């Protein structure tokens, strides 16, 4: 316990430092067929992918902005830089990563985390992955963990990617899915063969450094039958005056009797538009476990969806959202029970403070054939002052009467009695409040690996600083 982890001394500057990017590395801003062709050229896409991008762009142009949720009017799509040329090729040796990029990730603790507790690590800086490495024994078990671009060009995986890429989240899903289809870059491809249980997690870290830029990484994970994988994603960006955009996409395929745990700690800067789409499809007897901590961003739309397609499939969503000053975070989860005896459990906490707005949305759909399915949704909100807001929008669409569905929502404030109680034991008011809030978030931190749980608690402490008066 005495051992310090890489996040022990966290403060805002850890996320806020940045390096200047060279103007020459930025492709022109805006979203036009010419830009898309340039990105495609730059990346050496196969033809199907170039066509896919151009087709997605057409859909993007035709699709309206989402009609629900917080305003994205502050997002100037004509001025978002969608692609930044990499300073570096992908490396598998940390020493080959350029100095300032290396320093960025070292300050964020990435290589250290890899040494200590991970089976493999990927690090994306702006548009491209700069580092990827997998432990030897992991690679020998047949697990593939690489960037999507390399995989797309590898004859062993090319077909797998063509048949899975944006099949769960088609570009027609919504405007930003279409944008993603057009300009996606970077991200990870993970393949876990049948019967392989990877007990230590894989991690990728996304860092958006350039200002006024967008990050559009695509994560595609295929877990075959009877396998286990824990995948962790971390995100951060320094603060700029120009709004940034993150429109990533995550597609997860979980095989029969397999479990995939997908953990995210998102700490984008407070002027990011985080319009992210995540979706999993789960086969018979499989499990998807989402663990999600949302702390950053100016505006978030994030509702990971689980499609339970096989009998007895299970989805678990544990999430926390912390909306501070100037933040409007619209988060939640979607579950589709599409087979008999499927089950799901959504457990979320949201905290709002300093005028922040936190909205929880859940959508549980039980198809007619999903007889004997069970779902429970629980959401608790904590408002730290009277100027903040917390809303709950649960939607349920149950098409069979042979299902067991429950929903529970609670909204509260920190009680003065609890603060006094802790203060009477020597804790100052700020620590007392931070402890109560950390306790409130405990269901999520318990689900995270130790160093991430600590990072989350540090983030809470950081957010709680100056929350009094």
């Amino acid at each position, binding site marked *: 316990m*005495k051992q310090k982890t890489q996040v022990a001394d966290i403060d805002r500057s850890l996320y806020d430092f940045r390096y200047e990017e060279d103007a020459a590395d930025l492709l022109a801003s805006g979203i036009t067929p010419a830009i898309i062709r340039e990105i495609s050229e730059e990346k050496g896409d196969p033809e199907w992918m170039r066509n896919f991008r151009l087709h997605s762009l057409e859909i993007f142009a035709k699709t309206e902005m989402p009609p629900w949720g917080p305003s994205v009017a502050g997002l100037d799509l004509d001025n978002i830089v969608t692609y930044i040329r990499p300073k570096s090729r992908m490396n598998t040796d940390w020493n080959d990563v350029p100095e300032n990029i290396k320093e960025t990730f070292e300050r964020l603790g990435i290589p250290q985390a890899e040494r200590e507790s991970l089976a493999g690590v990927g690090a994306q800086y702006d548009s491209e992955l700069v580092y990827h490495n997998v432990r030897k024994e992991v690679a020998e078990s047949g697990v593939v963990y690489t960037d999507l671009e390399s995989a797309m060009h590898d004859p062993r995986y090319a077909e797998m990617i063509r048949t899975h890429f944006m099949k769960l989240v088609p570009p027609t899903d919504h405007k930003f899915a279409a944008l993603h289809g057009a300009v996606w870059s970077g991200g990870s491809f993970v393949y876990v063969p049948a019967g392989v249980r990877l007990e230590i997690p894989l991690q990728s870290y996304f860092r958006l450094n350039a200002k006024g830029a967008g990050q559009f990484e695509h994560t595609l994970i295929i877990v075959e039958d009877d396998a286990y994988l824990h995948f962790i994603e971390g995100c951060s960006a320094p603060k700029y005056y120009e709004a940034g955009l993150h429109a990533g996409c995550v597609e997860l395929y979980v095989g029969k009797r397999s479990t995939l745990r997908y953990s995210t700690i998102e700490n984008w800067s407070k002027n990011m538009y985080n319009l992210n789409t995540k979706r999993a499809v789960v086969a018979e007897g499989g499990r998807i476990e989402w663990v999600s901590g949302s702390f950053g961003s100016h505006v978030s739309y994030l509702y990971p969806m689980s499609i339970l397609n096989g009998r007895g499939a299970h989805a678990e969503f544990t999430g926390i959202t912390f909306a501070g000053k100037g933040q409007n975070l619209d988060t939640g989860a979607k579950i589709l029970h599409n087979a008999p005896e499927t089950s799901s459990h959504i457990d979320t906490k949201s905290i709002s403070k300093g005028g922040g707005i936190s909205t929880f949305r859940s959508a549980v759909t039980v198809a007619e054939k999903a007889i004997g399915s069970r779902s429970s949704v629980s959401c608790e909100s904590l408002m730290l002052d009277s100027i903040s807001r917390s809303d709950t929008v649960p939607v349920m669409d149950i098409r069979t009467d042979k299902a067991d569905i429950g929903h529970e929502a609670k909204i509260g404030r920190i009680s003065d009695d609890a603060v006094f109680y802790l*203060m*009477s*034991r020597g804790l100052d008011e700020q*620590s007392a409040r931070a*402890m109560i809030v950390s306790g409130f978030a405990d269901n999520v931190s318990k689900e995270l690996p130790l160093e991430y749980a600590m990072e989350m608690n540090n983030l809470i402490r950081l957010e709680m600083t100056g929350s009094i008066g």
Partner: protein
Amino acid sequence: MELLRIEQLTAGIEEKELLHGVSLIVGSGETHVLMGPNGAGKSTLGYTVMGSPEYQVTGGKIYFEGADITDEPADRRAKRGIFLSFQNPIEIPGLSLSDFLRNAMEQVTGQRIKLWDFKKQLRAAMDVLQMDAAYADRDLNVGFSGGEKKKAEILQLLMLKPKLAILDETDSGLDVDAVRTVSAGIAAYRAQCGGSLLIITHNTKILEALEVDRTHIIAEGRITAEGGAELIAEINRSGFEKYTEK
């Protein structure tokens, strides 16, 4: 030596004054008992000495070791060595008893405590109180029975080792065995650090194992009688009636 001095204290909630000029002195190492009928202001006095923001001090002073603490927040008072055992301990979901205690100890002493040392101390204190070790990892007071909550309060007392412990109705709602266990805990506190006690009670069971130095009777927000241990016996015989009339 004088530890706590309350001088002409008036305090209350919003417009309603509940303490009308209470004065009381507790010396170092002494055991005091504060008795009185329901609603007399016993708990108000305890909470006000601890610095609860629920009660506003409208007059008078509170001194601890000579320092004026009347306007200090509760955590400053705790750091000086004042402790209040709550009548209704608060449940804090997600915060384990041991994490909380270790944190509180580090705050009060201003020093880091090695995990191993902490665990050893905690184990010993839990043994005194016959508490199951599993309670250390449970969320603070969450789902504890009334008796376990009171034991957890005394556990905190034993770990934090304050100079003055105010015990607010620590014996209320406890069965005979639990009272005995809690009394053993209080005796251990006295034996280990010789701290002072201000025991708020209307039950004398908890006092049996203790040598009481002074008894204060409070009624309608005023101290109406003071004496030694013999006063407790008298209250037991004839009740508070005599002390509630002016």
